[in-house]
């Protein structure tokens, strides 16, 4: 507020602020996904790139139209709709029909985010709801997996099964057989040469992006490590075919959407707990549910539903893990008695 006489600005303290902005965080997270986009393009060709672009455009446009129609301030440049579209795109199979990303983005941005009050107020991760909606509505279209090819142009891509699909249906021996030997399997998973969603196949690309986010302190270890740690532990104990403690945690870590989910989706600020101790519980819950679905559920992959289910608990976890007030001896004092 400017004082009319003196021309001085009058505002409440503090009068200096950190340079970090919401916009910069959103665009940085988008940037951190660039390696995954590039690897998706490399393995699945222009069609995959187009799917991602279409998803981003649909998300941004949905947000723009909704805000205009509701006569709200148009804030599409904050980057959050872009990021939602990008994440949705990376979570789609490479050769889905073009209406798929459009419908998914509309569900993600308008229903999941805007109808709940816009940025900051949505309960569920928008991109994951978009994907869940598509998976439930178009189960067949959403489970057609292209065989990856290093060649950039491939007009009639052959289809394949995802490693997790093979693992679920035919077991680990068959999976190793498909990839030749065990080490070839691991290196292909690391590099990304396998069937799967556009952005989830290259573990290496995802780790590069995750390292960037951690270096920038945009995410901390709490959610991803507790998520991956719990999943590994359960995979090791219960994931084997020869009884307890014979499972292969590495195989489970590098397959499906676990890396993408743990570092880029479960860490979404809005839909995960804000308190660090609570984040550990949140990540642990995600890891547990993922493995429950993978090992006992009807779907080969459980990351998406695991994160969405844990999203429900975020507000509750934040309440339960409230920080200790300076000087308080026991639990923070409650002002109003229930």
């Amino acid at each position, binding site marked *: 507020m400017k004082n009319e006489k*003196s021309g001085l600005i009058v505002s409440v303290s503090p009068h200096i602020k950190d340079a970090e902005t*919401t916009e910069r965080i959103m665009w940085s997270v988008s940037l951190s996904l660039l390696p995954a986009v590039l690897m998706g393009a490399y393995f699945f060709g222009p069609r995959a790139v187009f799917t991602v672009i279409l998803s981003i455009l649909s998300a941004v446009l949905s947000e723009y139209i909704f805000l205009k129609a509701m006569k709200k301030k148009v804030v599409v440049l904050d980057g959050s709709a872009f990021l939602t579209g990008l994440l949705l795109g990376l979570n789609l199979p490479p050769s889905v029909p073009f209406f798929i990303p459009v419908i998914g983005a509309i569900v993600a941005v308008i229903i999941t985010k805007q109808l709940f009050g816009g940025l900051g107020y949505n309960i569920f991760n928008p991109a994951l709801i978009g994907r869940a909606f598509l998976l439930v509505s178009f189960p067949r279209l959403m489970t057609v997996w292209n065989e990856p090819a290093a060649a950039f142009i491939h007009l009639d891509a052959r289809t394949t099964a995802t490693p997790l699909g093979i693992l679920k249906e035919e077991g680990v021996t068959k999976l190793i057989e498909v990839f030749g030997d065990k080490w070839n399997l691991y290196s292909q998973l690391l590099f990304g040469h396998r069937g799967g969603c556009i952005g989830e196949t290259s573990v290496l690309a995802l780790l590069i992006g995750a390292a960037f986010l951690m270096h920038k302190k945009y995410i901390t270890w709490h959610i991803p490590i507790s998520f991956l740690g719990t999943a590994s532990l359960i995979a090791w104990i219960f994931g084997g075919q020869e009884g307890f403690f014979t499972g292969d945690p590495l195989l489970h870590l590098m397959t499906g959407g676990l890396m993408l989910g743990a570092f880029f989706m479960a860490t979404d*600020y*809005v839909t995960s707990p804000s308190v660090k101790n609570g984040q550990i519980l949140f990540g642990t819950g995600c890891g547990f549910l993922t493995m429950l679905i993978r090992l006992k559920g009807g779907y080969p992959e459980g990351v998406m539903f695991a994160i969405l289910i844990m999203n429900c608990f975020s507000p509750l976890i934040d309440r339960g893990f409230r920080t200790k*007030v300076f000087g308080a001896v026991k639990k923070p004092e409650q*002002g109003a008695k229930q």
Partner: protein
Amino acid sequence: MISALFRGGIHPPDNKNLSAEKPIATASQPDTVFIPLSQHLGAPCKAVVTPGQEVKKGEQIGEPGGFVSAPVHSSVSGKVAAIGEFPNAMGRMVTSVVIENNGKDEWTILKDTPDFERLSPEELKEKIKIAGIVGMGGAAFPTVIKLSPPKEKPIDTVILNGAECEPYLTADYRLMIEHPDEIILGLEILIKIFGVPRGYIGIEDNKPDAIEKMNQALQGKETIEVVALPAKYPQGAEKMLIKSVTGREIPPRALPMDVKVVVQNVGTARAVFEAVRYGKPLIERVLTVTGGGIHDPRNLFVKVGTLISHLIEECGGLREDAVKVISGGPMMGFALPSPDVPVTKGTSGIVVMSEQEMVHAADFGPCIRCGRCIEICPMGLMPSMLSIYAEKGFYEGAKEYNLFDCFECGSCAFVCPSKRPIVQLVRLAKSMVKP
């Protein structure tokens, strides 16, 4: 010695280099001073002079209006021109005594006490009381009240606050560099009043010169120890300072005396010494005039009642791009609607912000629950929840999230990527519900 560092805190750019190397200079005499009768926490003073009356420098012009109050003295010699309502730095109208300065700087008779070391605690306190000394770090709480805790609350530690954790400000720093002996004598007086075995001086470790100077001045004195504190805002907040020096945490809504500690600012300690030794009332103080929006940042020795506009002129005037004048530091100070308000006993600095130093926060976004504010809140609160509740008008909800434990240090609003005015929202909520 560092017992336990407090949790959270931030590292804003301190910009102290603008004025850190400028020795304290005496500001030129103003033609007129506007001395508010309420410069402290507590009851305002009652004027004991009338318009037209001649007064000398150091003469009492306002007597305490209650138990928690402090007398006010003239900072110049001259004639009382008026007694009326004038704006203070917080924008409120307060009864003030306007004195035309005759420029002669004639002191009233002060009681010199060269053998002050023989005075009893009660005699020492009386001298501090009549000198009108209040906390000079900003809160301006009458010092004598702090020195008189109830019998059931014994004190075992006195801490001087030389942290000066507010960015930009260098007044306490200069004071420690230039007058370490007087600060120590002041602390020794405080130690004597409480009869405690030890006193500490807490200084942030980004001021190594000040730590060295104080240590030099302390040679041979076993009862006082300098504690180098990690530079981290708000290290100088009373609760954080006590935690860092003694490891004790003040419970919610309790006072330092509840953990047997009294904290005084280094400037206050010097004022205590001068009051006891020379009988000098608190009518002048050191403050920093600084910021990117002023031509010549300086540390000045200033008479209480001098208009801030006078000091700005003294420092070369405002630059073209000056947009904001703050009384106090940039983290907790008040933005002035006009610089024509007086310096008071609690004014620790004037920061003039330039356009480039500002992050315009007229436009703020929704809370994205990134949790940064929760991580850095030194009080262990959840500022995000306070701001969301206050924004939506659910003030009771904010109260449930320990609204009243917030002392408005501003760290949360500093780190918020959505530039939410969290302190403003907290103040709004505080005004809407009972504690």
